[in-house]
């Protein structure tokens, strides 16, 4: 736990710090990427199925990186096995730890299994037990996209986290992260111009506005910190401008895999989306902990 002094002569205790933001970001990337990979593997053509398989590998690495970040966040990292050895069913963290473990193993196994059964074009075929595995991955993806909101809500001392709107916001953002990864992996042709990205941004915007509106007036100072205070650049600049508006603007200028310039644009769009995903989680984690922690934590 960090004790950090900032511009005011204040000490800020930050139980959930930067490693948690990193974890939440990579968990979102893993969940969204895997969810869309499952879609591609079930519904896509041969090129999309190959992209879907690659997406499962990305999801495996993303959840592994996120898990490492969680372990590093422990004050006693060597004790990380306790979270799996002992189980408190009332704790969402306990469920989440098991979910990300199973998710990581399952995505790795499915990626491997898909590589062993390919058609003439080299694309994976989804048959045998693989459809079941993919459905499980999809369910776990949704859970991993949602459960951080429930973890935050269990901290009843943090009023900004006790909102049912955080769950849809985080899930939508995770799917958005998945779109970004598939843009990088050139597996998102299906969604090019489909309105998925616009829809995701519009829904996130609606939920975010509702979330900000429903913050109790009693916590006006915390709300002001988000809207106009130290977290405002992260919210308006990171989430809204870089994470939502820049990718949409770039998407109007070109495709995902239409030649080199298209690939370059797609990469910039993806990076911008992922910055927005990170910024959203930073805003929620640090904003929820009440003080001007973000500045202090990143110094």
């Amino acid at each position, binding site marked *: 736990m960090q004790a950090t002094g900032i511009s005011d002569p204040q*000490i800020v*205790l930050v139980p959930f710090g930067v490693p948690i933001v990193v974890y939440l970001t990579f968990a979102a990337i893993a969940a969204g990427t895997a969810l869309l990979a499952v879609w591609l593997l079930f519904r896509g053509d041969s090129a999309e199925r190959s992209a879907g398989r690659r997406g499962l590998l990305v999801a495996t690495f993303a959840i592994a990186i996120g898990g490492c970040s969680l372990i590093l966040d422990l004050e*006693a990292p060597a*004790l990380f096995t306790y*979270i799996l050895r*002992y189980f408190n069913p009332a*704790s969402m963290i306990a469920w989440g*730890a098991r979910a990300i473990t199973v998710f990581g193993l399952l995505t790795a196994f499915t990626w491997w299994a898909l590589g062993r059964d390919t058609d003439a074009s080299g694309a994976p075929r989804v048959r045998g037990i693989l459809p079941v595995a993919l459905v499980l991955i999809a369910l776990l993806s949704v859970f991993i996209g949602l459960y951080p909101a429930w973890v935050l809500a269990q901290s009843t*001392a943090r009023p900004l986290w006790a909102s049912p709107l955080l769950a849809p916001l985080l899930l939508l953002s995770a799917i958005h992260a998945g779109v970004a990864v598939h843009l990088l992996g050139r597996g998102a042709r299906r969604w090019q111009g489909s309105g998925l990205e616009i829809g995701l941004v519009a829904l996130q915007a609606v939920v975010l506005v509702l979330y900000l509106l429903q913050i109790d007036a009693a916590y006006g100072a915390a709300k002001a910190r988000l809207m106009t205070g130290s977290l405002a650049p992260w919210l308006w600049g990171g989430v809204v401008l870089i994470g939502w508006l820049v990718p949409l603007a770039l998407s109007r200028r070109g495709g995902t895999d239409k030649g080199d310039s298209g690939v370059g644009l797609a990469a910039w769009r993806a990076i911008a989306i992922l910055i927005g995903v990170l910024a959203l989680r930073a805003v929620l984690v640090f904003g929820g902990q009440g003080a001007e922690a973000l500045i202090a934590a990143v110094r």
Partner: protein
Amino acid sequence: MTEVPWEKIHQPGAGAPKKRAGMVVDLRRCIGCHACSVSCKTEHEVALGSFRTRVRYLEEPEGNQIRFLPLLCMQCEDAPCLDACPTGAIARHADGHVDIDRDRCCGNKACVAACPYQAIFIDEGGLADKCDFCTHRTEVGLDPACAAACPTDAIRYGDLGDADDPVAQYVQKHAATAFKPEAGTRPSVVYVGLEDWMTDAARTGIQVSSDDDEIVYETR
């Protein structure tokens, strides 16, 4: 260190199980001497910079008075830390007080984030720690160290579940109230003389910390 001869101290009948172990802190009596926090640190060898029991110095919004607010784990009946802990390291004893099993704690700080009272901290070993009502003392019939050390009898430990208990009667007679009642945790530590302004003031009350060798303020 010499072992305390508990068997010689123990009084027959003392330390009998309580229905609901609790504490009342009479702020009208508190003189801010820190005897409670010092005795607590001594009793549990709490590391420099960390506190199981703290005393906030609160400045009255209008007037020059300083008031004192001892804070510790509230041993809540609806303790958020219990549900937040993924390993089940936090458990409730038969008398209702909440304790941390250090052999199960993984130090993930979920309890720290969940506690509305900032009563839980991470110790030097990376494990969660907090007030346990001095279980080792109360089970042999002694008062918790803070209650025993308080020179003005402002801190009283007893059975809030027993109407005949003097502490329960004190709570009833003086209409003791909870700190941060909006948290809805039904704390077993209650206060006499707690005024509304104190809750807000406690967020910015002075607390000495060794982290940077300065007097610092906490806000949350």
